[in-house]
């Protein structure tokens, strides 16, 4: 196995090109250790540790977006004042991720690129309609909607591509993150619902709902979002939206952690809870701050 620590995105891209499918990008490393196959093919694998690349680090405001480097860890998100102000939903998802040992190393980029359907951070980023900055040696860097990246199972990126950062649009919104696990902490979500909206009086606008653990990829609940647009937020609305999300949007699968029907039930209940909690949650991320 070869090992590299490139200093710049361009340097990393040269390595990713040269080693193609044998290149492995190392960020937090929590998934990568198990993707390696020691013995049979480990000798031709090139481990590309991207920790030195400053373009992939940091959390800062960039115009109308909060730019989060792909190397930002869950712990860094929870501690960051700008993230708490402008992306509170992402912070809540980060707080619920794993235990402290994982939050200290797990990165935004790793969460997206591992393609985990139950990823907390992916669900929150979906609800934000985040944009992803993807670099490759073919084109300087392209901006891809997170929904497009997450619409297929891993590998999320093509060979030779590198996720550099995500950009979260800044705007006034309410948000909610609801998650059910098999224990109170340190578990993957069986199902999680990330939601954000604007409320004008009681009227719902700009509703975004993302589901984790409700399909083979993280999903947007587009049916429920469309049904909710312009409606008054009350208990009956929330209940019906939960039903729509469960019946029309969720594509749950059965695995060793939960059955598909139980997951569908959780989508309904958690969507309802998320919507109702937004009716009382404070508005955050004022763009005029």
């Amino acid at each position, binding site marked *: *196995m*070869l*090992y590299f620590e490139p200093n710049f995105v361009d340097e990393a891209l040269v390595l990713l090109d040269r080693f193609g499918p044998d290149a492995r990008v*190392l960020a937090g*490393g*929590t998934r*990568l*250790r*198990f993707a*390696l196959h*020691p013995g049979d093919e*480990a000798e031709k694998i090139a*481990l590309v*540790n991207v*920790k030195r690349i400053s373009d992939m680090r940091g959390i800062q405001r960039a115009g109308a977006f909060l730019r989060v480097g792909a190397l930002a860890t869950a*712990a860094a998100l929870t501690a960051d004042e700008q993230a708490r102000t402008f992306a509170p939903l992402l912070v809540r998802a980060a707080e619920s991720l*794993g*235990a*402290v*040992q*994982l939050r*200290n*190393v797990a990165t935004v980029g790793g969460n997206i690129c591992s393609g985990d359907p139950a990823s907390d951070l992916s669900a929150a980023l979906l609800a934000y309609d985040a944009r992803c900055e993807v670099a490759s040696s073919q084109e300087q860097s392209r901006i891809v909607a997170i929904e497009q990246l997450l619409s297929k199972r891993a590998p999320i990126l093509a060979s030779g591509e590198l996720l550099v950062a995500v950009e979260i649009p800044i705007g006034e919104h309410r948000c909610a993150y609801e998650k059910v696990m098999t224990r*109170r*902490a*340190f578990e993957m979500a069986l199902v999680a619902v990330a939601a954000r909206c604007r409320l004008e009086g009681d009227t719902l606008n700009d509703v975004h709902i993302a589901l984790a653990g409700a399909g083979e990829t993280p999903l947007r609940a587009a049916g429920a979002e469309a049904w909710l647009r312009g409606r008054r937020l009350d208990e009956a609305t929330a209940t019906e939206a939960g039903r729509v999300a469960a019946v029309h949007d969720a594509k749950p699968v059965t695995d060793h952690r939960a059955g598909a029907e139980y997951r569908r039930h959780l989508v309904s209940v958690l969507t309802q809870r998320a919507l109702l909690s937004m009716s009382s949650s404070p508005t955050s991320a004022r763009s005029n701050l």
Partner: protein
Amino acid sequence: MMQPVNLMVNGTPYELLVHPSRSLLQVLRDDLHLTGTKEGCGTGYCGACTVLVEDAAVNACLYFAVDADHRHVRTIEAMRAPDGSPQALPAAFIECSGLQCGYCTPGMIMSAAALLASDPSPAEDDVRSALSGNICRCTGYQSIVASVMLAAARMAQHERQTQPEPSPRSRSRA
């Protein structure tokens, strides 16, 4: 291909040649013979291998040893006083019987050490939350939480005793 790695472990510098696929846990135990850190599940679920890298608790089984190059690592072996006696945390675990088989204990203590470094007087809930990535299959956790609370109290008391008494003038000003 072996990779040169400079590690600072418990204040001691080491220069090693490490295969890039090896975990920090393997290097600590097999190369440095620091066998206090235990391998439990080897998949990041049990926390038995918890060590501190730059003061942050991590699972050593998931951490690439090459990624620890030029970083400070702290393990259970560091948790003793200069005279060899246990520091406040392990001492409290002994006093409160915060262990039965003891296999999870090094990881528990390192997670607790990370907590107490950032929050010297945690509430019981904070302790449970900080230890949620450490699994014990013997104790039921009650005595472990009690151990951490006792250690926090002892350390706070020690802190008060070793701080210089405020001078009469500054006291009167307060």
